């Protein structure tokens, strides 16, 4: 049976979330195999460039709604537009990246279209015409195979789980302007301001992550300034430790991660937390510095391709999951490690 797939292109102020193209790659692979059609859904204000890019990344057709009401992330009008696009294209499958926005809109689309949604999918298989979607549950401690008995099927896919296609600027596709009827006055929310984070590699997209744990505050050769109380001195020492983690991350083009212990101790903000109550990541290289490896942390990173553990305690559980282990003081090892990797990468 031919399949019609609609892939939602997630973006922030017109700049795409890179994982959106992974969805389009998946959409065109499924559509191509079945002789069907892969369509991209681009919603926003001033996002014509994304429609063009979507064609280069494999869309046969692009549904585009370019409207000031769709500026910034307000789920309600965006969900209205998703619904109208789905009613017009009648897809068998709608794909969203598992981003903040993708997830919200997928959930709402399932309500609007009276169907189901399967989130954080990492693999797809077919049993005849039926999709079997595999997703981690309990932060990756277990896996579940899901099926959905209604159409359209809606899936959010985990970042980096599916290959990103190569863009081909020679491809052509049709851009269909979605005639959406949106009532801006009826939208109950308005965006007051946007606070952009300083540029840095995001954990979910990172192919390399360098993480710090409790050990970042335990440099034996460091004295905190005398005027700090115990807690402030602890945090001061941790900041020096995380500076070493960040220097290595910068050299590797990596994101900075942290264990829950480090976040709870106030060493680093929560958005760096990797683990069951943080982000679940799966980079090519994960360097754990001063992290003992509590089960909650392991759940969030153990599917990384190569794990390196640096820890003073030779009995730390993290070593059981590491490809390479170094028993030693991260504060002594990280500076020469950073230097040597820098030298290697620039040679």
């Amino acid at each position, binding site marked *: 049976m031919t399949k019609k797939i609609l892939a939602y292109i997630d973006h922030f102020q017109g700049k795409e979330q890179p994982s959106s193209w992974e969805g389009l790659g998946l959409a065109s692979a499924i559509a191509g195999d079945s002789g069907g059609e892969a369509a991209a859904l681009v919603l926003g204000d001033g996002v014509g460039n994304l429609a063009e890019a979507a064609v280069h990344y494999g869309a046969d057709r692009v549904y585009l709604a370019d409207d000031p009401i769709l500026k910034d992330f307000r789920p309600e009008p965006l969900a209205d537009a998703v619904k109208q696009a789905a009613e017009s294209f009648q897809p068998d499958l709608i794909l969203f990246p598992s981003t903040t926005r993708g997830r919200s809109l997928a959930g709402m689309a399932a309500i609007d279209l009276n169907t189901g949604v399967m*989130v954080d999918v990492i693999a797809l298989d077919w049993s005849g015409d039926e999709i079997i979607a595999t997703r981690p549950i309990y932060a990756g401690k277990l896996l579940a195979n899901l099926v959905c008995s209604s159409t359209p099927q809606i899936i959010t896919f985990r970042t980096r789980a599916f290959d990103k296609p190569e863009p081909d600027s020679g491809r052509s596709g049709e851009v269909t302007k979605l005639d959406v009827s949106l009532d801006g006055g009826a939208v109950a929310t308005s965006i007051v301001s946007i606070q952009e984070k300083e540029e840095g590699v995001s954990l979910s997209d990172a192919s390399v992550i360098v993480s710090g744990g409790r050990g970042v505050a335990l440099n034996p050769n460091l004295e905190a300034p005398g005027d700090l109380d115990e807690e402030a001195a602890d945090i001061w020492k941790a900041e020096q430790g995380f500076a070493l983690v960040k220097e290595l991350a910068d050299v590797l083009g990596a994101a900075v991660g942290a264990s829950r212990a480090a976040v709870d101790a106030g060493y680093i903000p929560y958005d760096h937390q990797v683990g069951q109550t943080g982000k679940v990541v799966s980079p090519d290289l994960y360097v754990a510095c001063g992290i003992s490896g509590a089960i909650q942390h392991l759940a969030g990173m153990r599917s990384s391709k190569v794990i390196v553990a640096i820890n003073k305690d030779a009995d730390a559980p993290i070593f059981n999951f590491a490809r390479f282990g170094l028993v030693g003081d991260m504060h002594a090892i990280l500076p020469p490690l950073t230097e040597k990797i820098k030298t290697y990468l620039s040679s």
Partner: protein
Amino acid sequence: MKIIVCVKQVPDTAAAMTVEDGVISWGDAQLIINPWDEYAVEAALNLVADQGGDVTALCLGKEGETEAIKHALAMGADTAVMVSDPALKGSDNVASSRVLAAAIQKIGEADLVLFGQQSVDTDTGLLPSQVARVLGWPSLTLVSKFESVSGDDGKIQVLRTMEEGGQVVDSSLPAVVSVTKDYAEPRYPSFMGIRKASKAEYPIWSLADLGIEAPTSSVSWPEVMEPEQREIVTEMLSGDTPEEMAQNLVDKLIAEKVL
């Protein structure tokens, strides 16, 4: 203002999960309130302390799954409602959101419905958006800060987090909000709170009490499994100095083609 905070019982995050005969098992691990929900309860209690009003903890679950409600009451929630019905076995998130929405309407007159950002079992984080959609209320997910709230004027301003940073949003009430861990450290239940919670009585509503049929669930999980244990051969690297250890690691990473 009237706040409903949705809570769920889950196995402790320290539990090693296994699958036995196709069924998920958490061994003898403790059952606890979903840790994310504690932030939502904390926010609800702070908001009513500031604005006046009351907090109702709402839990959808199997009969006897009382840990989440008890914890919310012990933290200081005023009342609780449990929704439980054998017909809800195997509900997907769409069905659950329709049931929760029905319960929220039956409780009535809520200004705010709060959720944790997700549950630590199924990790979907979908219910806040879906319940909002069913109710036709604004969905404000991943809120780390309440900039201003006025139950009287029916207005709220919150800071939502996104991958790229945050956005400050004005919204009308009623609304559905999910609260992140950045909000504030949740309080520990007091001894008095725990005593009160252990004696608290609250209604258990069935689908008939809500006046609805079991909503359709489209998604099912015919199979759960333990992830394949990758054979990891750990190579411990040594060296007489940190420089030597670092060099040994770099050599290995180059040989493994990860650099």
